[in-house]
């Protein structure tokens, strides 16, 4: 789909029998464009501007570049931390920087994000402490940040389940008179789950202000998109819920930001949910524990290197005179510092109190948990004695 040089509207003239009245098209505004929206060529050359899709302000694009560079460095650092045994596992989002950062920049700080395990970069780009973001993967607790402070749900592992939560939260916010928008990340594979369907449908029926943002990175672990769907593209799922939908070149940072900004505005204006599919590519294996050579061709990966979103935005900003060697170097240095700080802080082995296991199961531990806590307390005391 990404080979079409320019996004076009669905255009095939349908055969119409004469003498029948023309009914209004019930799909108007609901179907995506037939090819992914693209505003920059892969080499960063801008395509003609579009009246229906205002280009994002250049300061925002500069900020986007900065966060993408820092995000990529963060991502590499996290992968390195797995090799050093500091992280149990890490799912990289290398190659998906435009999506991860674009989503964050399209939102306000008080909007809510519903991420999956893949969105560590989006969360750090949101300003969440990377150590808190990696808590789940380091293994000291399930979620390291306070969702109510950063307006970000815990990274969700059970696929697609967050789609329904996002609908509920967004509806709840608007019910309470707040103009918060929720953005739910979801992968191509997870669109096959029933909860994706139920989430979109609830959001549509209740006109909940949610943006469903599918990062179609072409694989669900090893399973290629062709095993997930026979649809022309995932964005075509929206019309079945009455949800306007768009597809976008997920490696074109300008297009991603533009399309998501429009989607968020639509939701915030009270028009209900919006579905965006970004065509992108997972450059690394599913996680560091995965062996992608078992199921995909290195040539395929190579081909996607030419569509690198960071280089693309850099080229564009340079061509517009918005970025020069000095600025690039400064951002790279910032990224290095960010990574170094993360490495240092992840170096310290966290201590977790075993007795904390009994907290937060319920607001107050049940008598059964109190008994079990006493058992563990006694065990710990015996261990300490044995050690002494």
């Amino acid at each position, binding site marked *: 789909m990404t080979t079409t040089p320019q996004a076009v509207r669905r255009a095939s003239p349908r055969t119409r029998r004469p003498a029948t009245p023309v009914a209004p098209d019930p799909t108007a505004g609901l179907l995506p464009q037939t090819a992914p929206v693209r505003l920059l060529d892969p080499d960063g050359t801008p395509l003609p501007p579009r009246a229906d899709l205002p280009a994002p302000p250049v300061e925002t694009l500069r900020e986007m570049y900065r966060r993408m560079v820092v995000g990529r460095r963060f991502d590499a650092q996290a992968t390195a931390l797995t090799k050093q045994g500091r992280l149990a596992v890490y799912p990289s989002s290398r190659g998906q920087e435009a999506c991860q950062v674009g989503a964050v920049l399209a939102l306000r700080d008080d909007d809510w994000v519903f991420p999956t395990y893949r969105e560590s970069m989006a969360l750090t780009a949101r300003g969440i402490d990377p150590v808190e973001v990696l808590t789940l993967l380091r293994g000291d*607790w*399930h*979620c390291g940040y*306070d*969702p*109510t*402070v950063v307006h970000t*749900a*815990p990274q969700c592992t*059970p696929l697609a*389940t967050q*789609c*329904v*939560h*996002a*609908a*509920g*939260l*967004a*509806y*709840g*916010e608007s*019910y*309470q008179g707040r103009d918060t928008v929720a953005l739910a990340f979801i992968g191509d594979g997870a669109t096959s789950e*029933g*909860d994706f*369907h*139920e*989430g979109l*449908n*609830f959001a549509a*029926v209740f006109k909940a202000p949610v943006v469903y943002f599918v990062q179609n990175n072409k694989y669900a672990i090893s399973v290629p998109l062709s095993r997930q769907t026979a649809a022309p593209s995932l964005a075509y799922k929206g019309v079945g819920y009455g949800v306007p939908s768009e597809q976008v070149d997920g490696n074109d940072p300008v297009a991603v930001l533009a399309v998501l900004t429009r989607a968020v505005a639509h939701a915030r204006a009270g028009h209900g949910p919006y579905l965006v599919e970004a065509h992108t590519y997972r450059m690394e294996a599913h996680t560091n524990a995965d062996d992608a050579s078992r199921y995909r061709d290195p040539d395929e990966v190579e081909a996607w290197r030419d569509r690198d979103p960071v280089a693309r935005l850099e080229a564009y900003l340079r061509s517009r005179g918005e970025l020069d060697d000095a600025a690039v170097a400064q951002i790279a240095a910032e990224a290095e510092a960010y990574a170094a700080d993360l490495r240092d802080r992840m170096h310290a082995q966290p201590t977790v109190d075993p007795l904390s296991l009994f*907290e*937060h*199961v*319920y*607001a107050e531990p*049940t*008598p*059964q948990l109190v008994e079990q806590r006493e058992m563990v307390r006694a065990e710990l005391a015996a261990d300490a004695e044995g050690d002494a």
Partner: protein
Amino acid sequence: MATMTMAKALNAALADAMLDDERVLVFGEDVGQLGGVFRITDGLQARFGDKRCFDTPLAEAGIVGFAVGLAMSGLRPVVEMQFDAFAYPAFEQIASHMAKLRNRTRGALSVPMVIRVPYAGGIGGVEHHCDSSEAYYAHTPGLKVVTPATVEDAYSLLREAIADPDPVVFLEPKKLYFASGEAELPARTAPFGRAVVRRPGTDATLVAYGPAVPVALEAAEAAREDGWDLEVVDVRTIVPFDDATVTASVRRTGRCVVITEAQGFAGVGAEIAARVQERCFHALHAPVLRVAGLDIPYPAPMLEHTHLPGVDRVLDTVARLQWDDRPDPRWLAQGSAA
């Protein structure tokens, strides 16, 4: 004291909770204009408007997940599953999110919500309408699991559930919906975690909850003819479980039968039996026995009476509590064959 049905008491509990707390929203399938297939939400939409009591799309995972999101936004959802087996599509949302969100976030996100489930049988319902599903929930840490057996408890426990800071699975015994009882509303019987002795007795303890409580009471009444004075304990909240009341009773009586309508294998009855013998071993004159539904899919209406634990089966079991202190030949035979 007024006489009313459990259905009416539940309806009043919902209405009073909505009145007291604006954050309470009631939704599910057919709960709006219809008032629910059992009419538990009758009149709520008319009274509180269709933003506070409303119908949803027909999708249980969606209903529960939507409620989780609403709870995250600070509201207090109370949702209805139309029948027990129709909550199964929501199982992942219940087990992996509703039950765990507080724990996952170290208490930052609580999920004060209630899932109401009309459960169990005895109403001649067709398949999938009569499951006893309490064990699935009771086995899932993070959920509170509650089931009333009386009209007063129905009101009180539902108010408690809606006010509780934790997610609650509130199991409503269908066959008791339209049984009448005495109640003065707003009744407040006891907080979560308190079992109650429904009938004092000296010879053995019958432990039951929900739909099995009337069976236990009837059996205790009938047992008087056989010369047994049976105590009946109503568990009320399965999670958290009230060990103190149950063990105190069994220590007094020295004998115990656990009655559940659910299929017995790995059910809540097994948990109660296991706990009681752990805690009362030296007081026991006989093993803790169980009377449960058969280990079969809930049968078609014409056979449900064979499946359901009835008074006779309870009394037969009480008779096996080794009143003459001889081992039960039934198990002995089997054991020696091994």
